């Protein structure tokens, strides 16, 4: 029964990891940008949420209504300036620039908010309580909600990319920037929209993590970015639903590891990550063309 519990908990945390990962995957799939500041942006979103809640006293759960648009706007602006400027100088430059951005964000957070970790206190039964399945399985409502949000976000993204005008332009620009210009679309604007989506989703990830656990200035690189990478690689690059699958596999591996010995939690996750890299480097959901 304890094993079943571990698997259920793992699957549900996979939703959180998918929220971390889908933006990373999107930006790589479309712009070939590996955003090393991705995790830090989640932390920034979490801190903004804490600030917004303190100042405006809006219900904690609804803070995303402000934070997500703010982060999306930041994403668009960063893409149109810093990231596009580095893209123009070659894909490798983006790696260095986003790494630099990550260092800057982390140290700025340390400078202004100290190294103390803080959570986003919701104080609702939804977050603090859980329901029981049988005698040994306790499922936190919060994790179920986060998983549902992840599924909603991925469905929304999928729908947007496959059906909307801008979604089509994003996929077209990923294929051929020059040809998209010949149809009248400014690929830089299209990339900006794509970055806005990526930042918006990781903002949700940051808020969710702040509610589920604690955020500190270093959480972005030592937890969120690493889990996002692992989920993307396990699931398969450029596949949206793959990030959920990757997140679930990572979560289950961690929980099973923890079940064996609590200190094996992270190790087990990274072991699976490594195994996928060695045995199936294209990821679990690889297909020739993305949908």
């Amino acid at each position, binding site marked *: 029964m304890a094993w079943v519990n571990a698997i259920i908990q793992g699957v549900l945390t996979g939703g959180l990891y998918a929220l971390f990962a889908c933006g990373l995957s999107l930006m790589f799939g479309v712009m070939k940008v590996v955003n090393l500041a991705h995790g830090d942006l989640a932390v920034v979103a979490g801190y903004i949420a804490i600030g917004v809640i303190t100042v405006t006293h809006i219900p904690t759960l609804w803070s995303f209504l402000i934070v997500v648009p703010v982060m999306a706007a930041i994403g668009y602006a960063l893409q149109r300036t810093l990231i596009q400027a580095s893209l123009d100088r070659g894909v490798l430059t983006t790696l260095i620039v986003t790494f630099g951005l990550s260092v800057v964000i982390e140290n700025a957070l340390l400078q202004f908010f100290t190294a103390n970790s803080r959570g986003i206190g919701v104080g609702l039964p939804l977050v603090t309580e859980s329901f029981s399945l049988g005698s040994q399985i306790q499922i936190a409502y919060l994790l179920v909600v986060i998983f549902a949000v992840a599924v909603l976000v991925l469905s929304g993204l999928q729908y947007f990319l496959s059906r909307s005008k801008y979604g089509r332009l994003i996929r077209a620009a990923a294929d051929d920037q020059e040809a998209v210009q010949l149809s009248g*679309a400014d690929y830089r604007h299209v990339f900006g929209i794509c970055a806005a989506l990526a930042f918006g989703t990781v903002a949700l990830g940051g808020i969710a993590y702040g509610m589920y656990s604690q955020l500190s200035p270093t959480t972005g690189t030592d937890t969120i970015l690493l889990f996002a990478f692992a989920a993307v690689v396990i699931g398969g690059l450029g596949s949206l639903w793959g990030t959920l699958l990757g997140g679930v596999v990572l979560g289950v591996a961690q929980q099973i590891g923890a079940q064996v010995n609590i200190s094996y939690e992270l190790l087990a996750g990274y072991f699976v990550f490594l195994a996928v890299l060695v045995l199936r480097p294209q990821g679990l959901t690889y297909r020739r063309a993305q949908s």
Partner: protein
Amino acid sequence: MTTPVKRDGEVGGGTPLLEARDLTVNHGQLRAVDAISLRVYPGEVYAMIGANGAGKSTLLRTIAGLHQPAAGAVLLDGQDLTRVRPERRARQGIALVPEGRRLFGSLSVEENLKVGTAYARKGPWTIDRVYETFTWMKDRRNQRTAQLSGGEQQTVAIGRALVANPRVLLLDELSLGLAPVIVQRIYGMLPQILATGLTVLLVEQDVSQALKVASHIHCLLEGRTTLEGRPADVTAEQVEAAYFGLADAPAGPPAEGSESLWPG
């Protein structure tokens, strides 16, 4: 450089719809296009011919805005577009069907056409109209373009440009890599396309094909103009000399092989 042929009695007449003035384009050290001028009048089929590396494609890409010229200007309907970005030029009515087709590989046929409509001008061309013109396309609209033959891909690329309702359609080497019978069929569609009020500037290595469809030809050699005029006003020998750079082509009986350059 030869003196430009007098343009009286050309189709349309009046002000040129598309004009290039002394356009010079460099690829690094190489001068790909050297002070080329051209005037395309409404309703014309203007054909640029020339051998590989003559600078035809570079010229077309420069007109579409994908290269910045070192000197000279590009004008659409008298308006200077030289410093305008390619997507703005597309929205103002310059549509390039690029060499190698450049379809979006992860999109279906219909999605490729929909990208073409994203910033379309108002006009007669719609996706349905493209389906009516190229009848095979509708049944296969949900297929990915990689599953199409080269000729089919080329027509999708043309369709994608048409649905934007351009004023000038730039066609870059339609015949590249296609079987002659397919090339014939694609060029056979040109009258239908022109009937909707389009103007065409095309680049073609296949001279006989170009001479068949063009109302005006312009021959390039190593980035320079070597011949310009209406197909009816130039002789096979002149075209051959201009194409291969035989500066002092001997007058008299045409050389062996010139038949292949000359249509019928």
